[in-house]
């Protein structure tokens, strides 16, 4: 049962990931990304990380991809350009593909981690455990993250504000 679900989810995820890369239209790409994320959320559930699955959906699917779609539409790139083959790109693509294949091969052949059963639940399954981790051992990064978000917010406001509104005297 779990095996079947895994195969299904991973196939979905991979197919959609390829979709993101190959999609001609950016909207299709975004939708593929959405589905891919849904697949990963499903995998998270399989790994008993319910909390993370929901956070993933909330943050990524709910906000990030929506933002992508929003911007794609705002910039009206319906036509979109698929990747045409030009020498430089072909080279890059070839290199990347080769990297992909060799990397996967190597991990498959040499990266065996041993097929042991799961040892623990992982903190992602229990909200409480997760929160305790965040607010004790990792409190400092959480605080820093707050600053990061503040800075990002300020920056976004600054960058996207219309230029004519900027007060030169300020």
């Amino acid at each position, binding site marked *: 049962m779990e095996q079947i679900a895994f195969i299904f989810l991973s196939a979905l995820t991979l197919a959609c990931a390829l979709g993101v890369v190959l999609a001609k239209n950016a909207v299709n790409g975004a939708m593929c990304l959405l589905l891919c994320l849904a697949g990963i959320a499903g995998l998270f559930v399989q790994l008993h990380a319910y909390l993370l699955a929901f956070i993933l*959906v909330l943050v990524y699917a709910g906000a990030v991809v929506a*933002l992508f*779609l929003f911007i794609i539409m705002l910039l009206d790139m319906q036509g979109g350009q698929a990747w045409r083959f030009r020498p430089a790109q072909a080279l890059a693509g070839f290199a990347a593909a080769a990297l992909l294949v060799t990397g996967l091969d190597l991990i498959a052949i040499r990266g065996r981690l041993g097929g042991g059963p799961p040892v623990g639940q992982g903190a992602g399954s229990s909200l*409480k455990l997760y929160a305790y981790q965040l607010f004790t051992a990792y409190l400092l990064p959480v605080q820093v993250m707050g600053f990061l978000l503040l800075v990002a917010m300020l920056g976004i406001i600054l960058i996207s504000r219309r230029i004519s509104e900027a007060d030169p005297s300020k």
Partner: protein
Amino acid sequence: MIAYFLGLPVMVQAVAKGLAVIVVLFPIAAACSMAERKVCAWIQCRPGPNRALPPLFGWIPGIGILQRLGVFHLMADGGKFLFKEEPLPDHVNKPYYVLAPVVAMVPAFTTVTVVPFGAYLGSGGAVVPLMLANVDVGILAVFAVASLGIYSLILAGWASNSKYAFLGGVRASAQLISYELSMTLAVLPVFLWVNEPGSAGSLSLARVVEFQSRPGFWGGSWFLFTMPVSALIFAVALFAETNRQPFDMPESEADLVGGFHTEYGAFKWSLFFVAEYANMIVGSAVFALLFLGGWNLLPWLPLADLLERLHHATGSALWLHPLVAGLVSVAIFAGKIFLTIFVFMWVRWTVPRFRYDQVMKLGWQKLLPLSIANLIAYTVGIYFLQQ
């Protein structure tokens, strides 16, 4: 019977639950649309739709009341949506155009699964919530899945390939994202209070109700009274999230014809319609659970107490039977939901529509700071309360 159900394969269970949701929610949503028309009419001092009557049914005694209530209009509407010609405009992006209304249904119907809709008394008088899937992360799941609703609006707006629809979609998505923030922040104090140190931390909605059913002043009082600001913010954000008046900028007929669903008709349009009401129902349910004490009839009068008193008053042990208790709780809860939905409608026909900049300003410059301040205040307050 429960045992039999639990004995079924998981997939069958899931399908059954899903079907149950659809079977229950769809008619309720449809009924709401009718209710809306009636409420609107009453507020405008009209009788509202009251004419439709299937042919040959006139002889049934008492059917006149149903007719006056417009019940058959509902059926007529449903039939019309089902059998009307499906227009598929030539200029639209077809796959997404068709997909959008379906997507709209998903979050509406998925969130229901984690919302408890009643409770029965288990062995030893313990209150067991009735819900389709009891997950630890309840409210998070609601928010997470509800946030997916935005895609239907964006897709509908974009795929329609019309500037009205597009503007509507853009407005809708921006509005949804903006108000989600204050909504989440408004709810946090509730869970802060519920998850006091030492308790098994949970974001489950049932636990919130359980907390509101506790004896004692703070426990027995509903969060509406202890956290009025949170409740207000949540309610306002709920209005915005469901695109209800006065926040229905995305579909404002005056300037955008119909917003994101301008190009839709017939059954596809009805799906949007149902989804909107389903969202409202879920939203009202969450509001009732969080702030109105869930299935408790009155503040400081938990369900268990109520049943106990009824038992003493009538002397009938029937009140303590799980099935009866469940029905009572479901009824109470449903009553609250309908009340809340009624308020939705009431507001809709009272308050005029905002301008879009006012919507954004309210969301970002008023509600967000307010909800943050509220969160901070309650954090401090709860800390001192628990000392």
